[in-house]
Every structure is written in C-alpha cells, then in structure tokens.
C-alpha cells in the first residue's frame, strides 16, 4: 500500500479553507486544522482495515460514505461562516458610508 501523505493533504486543504474564511481564519484555524487532519487520518485508518481484511466491501463503502458526507457537512459549515464574514464586512461598510452621507447632508434618521 502506498502511504497516504496526511500532512500534504492537510496542508493543501488548509490553503483552500483559509481562502474561504478570509479574515476569520485565525478564529477558526484550530477547528479547521483539527477537522482536516482527522478526515485524512480516518481515510488512512479505513484503508488499513480494508487491506488487513478486517472489514468487507459493504462496510468499507458505508464507512467511506459517512466520511464523505461528514466532510461535506464540515465544508458547508466553513462556507457558511465565510458568508457570514462577508455579510458583516459589507454591512460595516454600509454603516460607514451611511454615516458619511448623513453627516454630509446633515440629517438625522434612525439606523
């Protein structure tokens, strides 16, 4: 069996997740790194079980399905957090511009 390069997989995945999370990367770094590492290790563990004949084809397939769907769920979570971040940034800009416009035309409206 060719060794799975867990570190390489994790490092490549981190680059993608970092781009999605942008400015929030530091806050979610421990979660993202932990999850990505775990999925790589799970895949390696499953491959070893299959090669050792510990699990049959059906169980191997079912357990890979669980990994695949869980990974998607995690990536969706990361994508969602990325969108929340973008939403907050846009609204902060709107607040700044609104304040500037209000000051310029000298009116007061509730925000």
């Amino acid at each position, binding site marked *: 069996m060719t060794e799975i390069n867990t570190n390489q997989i994790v490092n490549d995945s981190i680059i993608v997740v970092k781009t999605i999370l942008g400015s929030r990367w530091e806050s979610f770094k421990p979660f993202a790194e932990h999850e990505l590492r775990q999925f790589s290790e799970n895949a390696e563990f499953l491959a070893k079980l299959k090669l050792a004949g510990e699990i049959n084809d059906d169980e191997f397939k079912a357990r890979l399905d669980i990994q695949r769907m869980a990974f998607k769920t995690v990536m*969706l979570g990361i*994508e969602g957090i990325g969108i929340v971040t973008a939403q907050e940034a846009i609204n902060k800009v709107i607040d700044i511009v609104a304040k500037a416009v209000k000051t310029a035309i000298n009116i007061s409206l509730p925000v």
Partner: protein
Amino acid sequence: MKTLIYTLAIFLIAGCHITLITGYDPVIDETTTNMKKDFNLHFIKLMRTLQDEDSTNQSFEKFQDYYDNMEVNLIALSDRAKFLDTKSTIVKKQVILLDSTMHVFMNMHRNGLRDSRIDDRRDIKNAINSSFDAVIMLQEELKSSGTIKNN
C-alpha cells in the same frame, strides 16, 4: 440616473443592511446539540459490546430505543429546515447530509457489526461528531450575526 442616486442615498441613510445568509433556528441548534450527546453515549455502549467475546450483545434490536429517538430528532430537524427561508440553503443542505449520515450508520448496525479488538470504529465516531460540530458551529455564527437587521 437621478432616481438611482436617490434610491442609493435613501438606502444608505436608512442604514439598510444586506443579508446574504440566514438559517439560525433554536430548535435545530438545540436538537443537534442533544443528538451529539445521545450519539456519543450510544457509541460508548455499542463499542463495549463490540470489543468483548459475546457476538450477540451488539444486535440492532438491543439498541432500538436509541435509533427510534434518533429518527424522531431527524424528523424534527428536517421539519424545521423545511420552513427556513431561501437564504438558508447551506443549513438545509447540512440537515439533509446529517440525516443521510445517521441513516447510513443505522443501516450499518442493522446489517450487523462484528466484534473486533483492532477496529475501534474511530472513523465513524470522529466523522459523525464532525458533522454535529459543523451544524452547531454554523448555528452559533448565524445566531450571533442575528443582530444584523434583515431587509
């Protein structure tokens, strides 16, 4: 052109905020948190039966209560997700995936799990916990961004 500028000015002056994503639901948040706890308790009990010499104590029937409760919780999640608005696609997809993941796990148990001291099924435990965590984490983010006005 003037109309566009006035519209933009009104929009900015009124402090309208943009909503790109929604989907916080206290029931989804709480149910998922409870499901995570139930799953881990179930997994500990199940693993105990898979790492002994008795090949009958892990039968699906002996764990039926857990799966019945799990089904009830998944129905609750799906029902709540159904009524979320159109900007909640990500949360809806997460709920569908969680439902499928738990059903694969249940069917695997129904089809029979054999005793093994080598295979501690850590991949299953890790992946399912990751699914729960991802749903809960996004719910928490959406909850804290809920202070933004929806327009």
